[in-house]
């Protein structure tokens, strides 16, 4: 198992698949789908940030967080707060009893903008908060738990509780957060209307560029020493600790990094969909986000994106046409991925498609392979070998030849057949 996984780590691999993914996102989808569907895909691709973060955190680090929706939501809300303040200028909200504050505050009898909303009038602050708040929360949670060596199941339960807390808080504080409906009716970003078709195209491409960028950064992290350490501490944490590494710091770093990725995804989600609501924060969406990564393959950054797309396409398709079947299918997906394909789509690709492709390729190239490598193994080649090797091996008996030949030649030869 471990030996199979390691190739995914090596830096020179996987660039091809990232380029292929970029081609799919930037060329194939815009050509095939209209803007409505493309906007939908853009929404899915904003979830993919969470899945990519989970590959790092869960696949490599072995830390399962069931609270990634919290960070997704925090990022989304930071962006939504900025956009909402821009959308509720005194002119367009003059019918309210208190013009100039978001409509849901007015409905909840608030007469002034709460203090914590004030700084979100400035885009730089909103963008900074979008990255810093989730990372800070992740740092506090991570530092509290990883330093005390809480991991695995307990970490999952506590992150889940945090997801519940945040969603209950947002729903309960309707006047400050918009409640169950969330923050809706977002119109412009610095005067640029985000609801037009061209804006949707631009946002889709921006999302794609950021996603590919995030994958490249993650790939760089994984191919560095950090990736190796993450794998090591997932499999034998104590040994890493005994080797003198501060395990907790690495875990905290990955947790914060994944949280920031989620936040970026959340912000892009808000921009493309035009609202943010607590239904992306709670327990159910957080676990669903884990299944995106699990279906795609918890060890493959690119796979996670495909997994996200596949699960969401399935969700949209089935909940439109066979609403009864969707949950059952989702159940089968959870159980099947865990029992049958722990490495998801990427694992299937590595274990089935690639070998099959290689076999096919080798079958056509067999003569070439035979010419170059088969010497010494096949009986009729033996004289040739003796001649080529000349005097130094003139005394080599058949057994001598067979003793030296299997090492480089025979594996290729066998697999070619």
């Amino acid at each position, binding site marked *: 198992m471990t030996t199979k996984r390691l190739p995914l780590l090596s830096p020179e691999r996987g660039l091809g698949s990232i380029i292929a993914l970029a081609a799919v996102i930037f060329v194939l989808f815009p050509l095939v789908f209209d803007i409505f569907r493309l906007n939908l895909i853009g929404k899915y691709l904003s979830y993919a940030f969470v899945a990519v973060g989970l590959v790092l955190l869960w696949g490599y680090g072995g830390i399962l967080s069931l609270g990634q929706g919290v960070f997704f939501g925090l990022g989304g809300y930071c962006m939504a707060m900025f956009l909402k303040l821009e959308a509720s200028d005194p002119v367009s909200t003059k019918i309210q009893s208190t013009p100039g504050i978001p409509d849901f505050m007015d409905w909840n009898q608030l007469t002034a903008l709460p203090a914590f909303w004030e700084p979100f009038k400035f885009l730089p602050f909103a963008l900074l908060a979008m990255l810093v708040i989730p990372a800070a929360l992740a740092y506090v949670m991570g530092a509290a738990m990883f330093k005390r060596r809480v991991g695995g199941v307990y970490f999952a339960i506590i992150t889940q509780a945090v997801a519940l807390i945040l969603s209950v808080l947002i729903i309960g504080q309707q006047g400050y957060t918009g409640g169950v409906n969330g923050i809706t009716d977002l119109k412009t970003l610095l005067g640029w209307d985000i609801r037009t078709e061209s804006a949707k195209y631009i946002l889709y491409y921006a999302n794609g560029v950021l996603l590919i960028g995030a994958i490249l950064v993650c790939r760089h992290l994984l191919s560095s020493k950090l990736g190796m350490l993450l794998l090591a501490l997932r499999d034998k944490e104590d040994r890493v600790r005994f080797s003198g590494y501060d395990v907790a710091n690495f875990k905290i770093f990955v947790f914060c990094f994944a949280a920031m990725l989620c936040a970026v995804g959340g912000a892009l989600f808000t921009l493309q969909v035009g609202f943010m609501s607590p239904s992306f924060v709670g327990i159910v969406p957080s676990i669903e986000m884990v299944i995106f990564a699990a279906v795609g393959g918890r060890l493959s950054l690119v796979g996670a994106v495909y997994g996200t797309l596949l699960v969401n396409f399935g969700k949209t398709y089935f909940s439109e046409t066979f609403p009864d079947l969707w949950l059952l299918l*989702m*159940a089968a997906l959870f159980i099947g991925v865990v029992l049958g394909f722990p490495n998801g789509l990427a694992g299937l690709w590595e274990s089935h498609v690639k070998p099959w492709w290689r076999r096919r390729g080798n079958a056509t190239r067999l003569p070439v392979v035979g010419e170059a490598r088969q010497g010494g193994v096949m009986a009729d080649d033996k004289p040739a070998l003796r001649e080529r090797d000349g005097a130094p091996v003139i005394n080599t008996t058949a057994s001598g030849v067979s003793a030296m030949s299997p090492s480089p030649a025979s594996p290729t030869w066998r697999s070619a057949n």
Partner: protein
Amino acid sequence: MAFEDIGGIIAMQGFAGLSLFSVLLLMALGLAIIFGQMGVINMAHGEFMTIGAYTIYLFTSLAQAHLPSLAPYSFVIAIGGAFLIAFVVGYLAEYLLIRHLYRRPLDTLLATWGLSLGMQQIFRSTFGAKEVSPEVPEWLLGSFQPVEGIDIPINGVFVMGLTLLVTGVVFILLYRSRWGLCVRATVANRTMSNAVGINTKKVDRLTFAIGCGIAGIAGAAFTTIGSTGPTSGSLYIVDSFLVVTFGGAASLLGTIASAFGIAQTQSITEFFLTGSMAKVLTLLLIVTILMIRPQGLFAAKIRR
């Protein structure tokens, strides 16, 4: 007069806390066995409770349709039925799913989440998406007034009594029965238990099934308090896990203590704040304490 009012409020508030305590404890008992003893994360725990609730619904409506004379007692029989059905489903779930995943706790979590989704859909297809509430027998309705100004609902007392009974039975089962001995031995050292001739696989299956059965009883009891829908199980799941974790996973006493603490905290904060803020504060308190003291209130004496 004013003093009596305050006394009444305190008594009612205390009863509300106790009532919540018995609800939380009943919810968490099954999980205390499955998660606390076996270490299996059963995210479908809430759905096993829902099974119990729907069994009550089915039994009481059947009894009303065909055996009206039995109706007052059917509720008690139905609780037994709820245990049995949840037990059987739990047994099957362990056999088909859980036993393949004992070595991968995080994957168990995902698989049982899948199981819970599937069960929710099955409930929805069978009983409809609308919430149902079974006919509660008359002796469970209403309230009695021990003193003027104090109103104690009978269904609350019933749930409390049932909780007491189930907790007692679980205690006896775990600490005084052959099965309990096997469970504790398996938890302490699986390899050694195997070596001395305990069929640990069988013990696992039975333990899981009993935990699920107790969840079924809990769900059955909750039908006296609220209605049941296909997704009501998911409301309980985080609370149950927090109760067990907060108490210290392997300790039954810890589970009881933590259920008591959480219930009192929540009912007291509920008195001063809105329901959702009380919930947030309570959860926040639990999470903070768990971050500082991850082993929970009653730590098991094991070397890590």
